[in-house]
């Protein structure tokens, strides 16, 4: 087995309670590196088209990446992959929790879970053996309680647990999967686990992994640490403050979603910014094998929420559960963050849903009759705290509605409320407002899992005004559609390949070094050339597009919510700005051309041949 891979994938059928361990398809591993790339190929092959995401037929895949569990810096990230209950399309959701690494030590590259258990179950994977255990006594427990109970039951403190909270059990469509205190947040993977009656996956491994070229690997790791982490100003922000430091940048740029995306600048942001977090920070923490250590543990010492101890808030949380719902107090933000994590809700989507509900309330579209007596004004944290818990348990008809996510909720509610719903393909937008950074709009619209910031991040080059195309910088005009599609395309390649390798988005932006890392870990000679690494990224992007096209995606889905085009920002440095439709259409057209997709957003046969997907993919396009 070449280094970097364990070589085994477990197919777990919950209905029949059967496990079949099969060798990893090395042809696919070579083409799609690992993680989301390989998982995409498995999902395409084994998931029948058009299944309901919350039905037993849907697959729940945990796939690790080649760099997981090695000494490569900031590389413990691994995805859960499934068909999203929120969007109905592709979903991969990464976290740096310790389960992925442990799964490799336990002797598996990945597990593919299908079917539905008769009663609440959890899976225990222990050094190559897989057993089903009853989770009746765990059903209903919050995330940290369930994790603790499983560790006590198995009698091993080093067991790593991946679990859902009450929200996942009740099929809230944006429920998370918690992996040792880090969250697979977006897209509702928790609801998929809940629909399978699968409470948790506990993993213990005492094995080991190795890399293909140890001495090269050591050299490259050293180089990455020196250049990408310790002497890199971008990484330094992560080391010093954590992701929350991004808020200073976006608030100044007018890209901070505020009051359900009505504006891009929040006046009370200094109550929840990185400095406010640092004041109540009690500890730093890190994902496995990471020298950056971006997690903040905060403890609220006084006020209404005194005694709250939680990890976070990350930048996205501070924006969506902070400025987007009018909260400018670190105590309230910490409490909401804590509740969302413990109950198992995605803080980004939750913030989008709450912001949407608050705007409807302020506009008089819904009243206290609908909300069950709650006063949902922006910034009313008492109401939000009650509401979050009620959403997770689907306590009232109103929270049952909110638990469906903004797209389904607005369609069911009617009353013109969809005008205020801010989502792409059903996934609520994260914390970079496209009106302040037009390319971000394109990035959201074409991202494989819906409105998401982790497929490309063009706001950086846009606001800085510089972008390096190869060795030479090209000028970037911030408020213009020119030269934007190329940034999104290239960044998508980088992110796809990097995530498939297992490297965190918070580290290492140099393709050459990433490519060499891939070469040293896997031993595949082609990665000595950086172009092949980028091509692998392009291959993964196209492969996932094939999956999405098969599930019915076309260019009419690659659109932005009307608010972005029609409602100008009401304050801040970007006051009066919208993202004009013509700009967006121009960028999108350019993007499709650069990608080699037709006008409907379908990859052409030539494109698929050029990027080199395996022959088996063509049948899914009907060729």
């Amino acid at each position, binding site marked *: 087995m070449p280094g970097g891979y364990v070589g085994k994938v477990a197919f777990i059928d919950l209905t029949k309670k059967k496990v079949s361990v099969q060798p990893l398809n090395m042809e696919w591993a070579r083409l799609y590196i690992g993680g989301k790339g390989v998982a995409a190929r498995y999902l395409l092959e084994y998931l029948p088209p058009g299944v309901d995401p919350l039905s037993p037929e849907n697959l729940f895949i945990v796939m690790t990446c080649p760099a997981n*569990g*090695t*000494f490569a810096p900031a590389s413990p990230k691994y995805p859960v992959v499934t068909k999203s209950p929120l969007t109905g399309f592709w979903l991969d959701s990464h976290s740096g929790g*310790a389960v992925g690494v442990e799964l490799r*030590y336990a002797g598996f590259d990945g597990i593919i879970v299908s079917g539905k258990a008769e009663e609440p179950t959890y899976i225990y994977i222990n050094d190559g053996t897989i057993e089903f255990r009853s989770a009746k006594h765990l059903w209903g427990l919050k995330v*940290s309680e369930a*994790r*603790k109970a499983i560790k006590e039951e198995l009698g091993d*403190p*080093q067991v790593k647990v991946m679990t859902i909270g009450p929200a996942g059990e009740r099929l809230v469509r944006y429920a998370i999967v918690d992996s*040792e*205190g880090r969250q697979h947040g977006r897209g509702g993977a928790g609801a998929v686990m809940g629909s399978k009656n699968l409470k948790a996956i506990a993993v213990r491994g*005492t*094995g*080991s*992994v*190795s*890399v293909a070229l*140890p001495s090269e690997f050591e050299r490259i790791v050293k180089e990455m640490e020196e250049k990408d982490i310790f002497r890199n100003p971008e990484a330094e922000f992560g080391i010093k403050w954590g992701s929350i430091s991004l808020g200073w940048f976006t608030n100044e740029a007018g890209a901070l979603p505020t009051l359900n995306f009505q504006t891009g600048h929040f006046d009370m942001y200094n109550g929840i910014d990185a400095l406010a977090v640092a004041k109540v920070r*009690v*500890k*730093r*923490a*890190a*994902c*496995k*094998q*990471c*020298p950056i*250590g971006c*997690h903040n*543990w905060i403890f609220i010492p006084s006020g209404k929420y005194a005694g709250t*101890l939680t*990890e976070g808030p990350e930048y996205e949380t501070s924006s969506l559960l902070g400025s987007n719902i009018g909260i400018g107090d670190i105590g309230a933000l910490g409490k909401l963050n804590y509740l969302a994590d413990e109950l198992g809700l995605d803080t980004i989507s939750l913030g989008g849903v709450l912001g949407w509900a608050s705007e409807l309330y302020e506009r008089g579209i819904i009243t206290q009759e609908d909300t069950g007596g709650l006063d949902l004004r922006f910034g009313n944290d008492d109401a939000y705290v009650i509401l979050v818990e009620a959403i997770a348990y689907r306590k009232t008809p109103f929270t049952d509605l909110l638990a469906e996510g903004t797209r389904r909720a607005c369609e069911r509610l009617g009353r013109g409320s969809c005008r205020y719903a801010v989502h792409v393909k059903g996934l609520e937008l994260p914390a970079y407002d496209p009106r302040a950074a037009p390319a971000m709009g394109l990035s959201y619209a074409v991202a494989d899992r819906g409105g998401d910031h982790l497929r490309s991040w063009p706001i950086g080059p846009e606001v800085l005004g510089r972008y390096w195309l190869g060795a030479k910088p090209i000028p970037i005009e911030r408020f213009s559609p020119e030269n934007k599609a190329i940034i999104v395309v290239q960044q998508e390649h980088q992110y796809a390949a990097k995530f498939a390798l297992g490297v965190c988005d918070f580290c290492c932006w140099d393709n050459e070094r990433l490519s060499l890392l891939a070469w040293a870990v896997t031993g595949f000679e082609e990665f000595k050339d950086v172009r092949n690494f980028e091509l692998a990224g392009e291959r993964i992007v196209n492969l996932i597009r094939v999956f999405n096209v098969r599930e019915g995606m076309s260019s009419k889905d690659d659109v932005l919510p009307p608010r972005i085009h029609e409602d100008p920002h009401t304050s801040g440095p970007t006051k009066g700005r919208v993202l004009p439709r013509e700009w967006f259409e121009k960028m999108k057209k350019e993007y499709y051309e650069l990608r080699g997709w037709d006008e409907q957003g379908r990859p052409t046969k030539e494109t698929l041949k050029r990027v080199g997907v395996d022959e088996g993919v063509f049948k899914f396009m009907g060729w």
Partner: protein
Amino acid sequence: MAYKILVFDSGKCTGCERCVLACNYVKTNVYGTRDSRIRVFAWRDTGDFITTGCYHCDPAPCMEACGVDAIYRDPKTNAVVIDYRKCINCKACVYACPYGAITLGSEGKVIKCDLCGGDPACVKACNYGALRFEPPERVGLDFAFQYAAMVKVKADISKRVWSGIRPA
């Protein structure tokens, strides 16, 4: 007395386990946790991380428990190390160690920290200052300073207001 001391400062530990990976790699050339001489226990619900390993006690219970004198003190590093030529793998040292610092490795032999012959890999892997290799005269200074800084905050000496810190 030129030897240095391995200092565990768990208050700074972030739970990244790079020390564990480094230790395991130095001893076995693969990445894992089984053969690591150092361990990190994580409580992810409260953010607590505790690093444990060998403290190289003097007198060392493991050394006294060993019936065949296979454990000795390295004169160069002052580390307590196992002489595998004499070791009969009876595991008496495992039971004697009050800290659980001696375990069974993947090859079935008892294993323990030997300070890598005076240049510990775990310390080089730690970026957070949670593991340090310090000369004896330095040991304890950081902990004392941390305590002093805490008292300073409580007492608020900068404003010359004594808020009543008394011995417990």
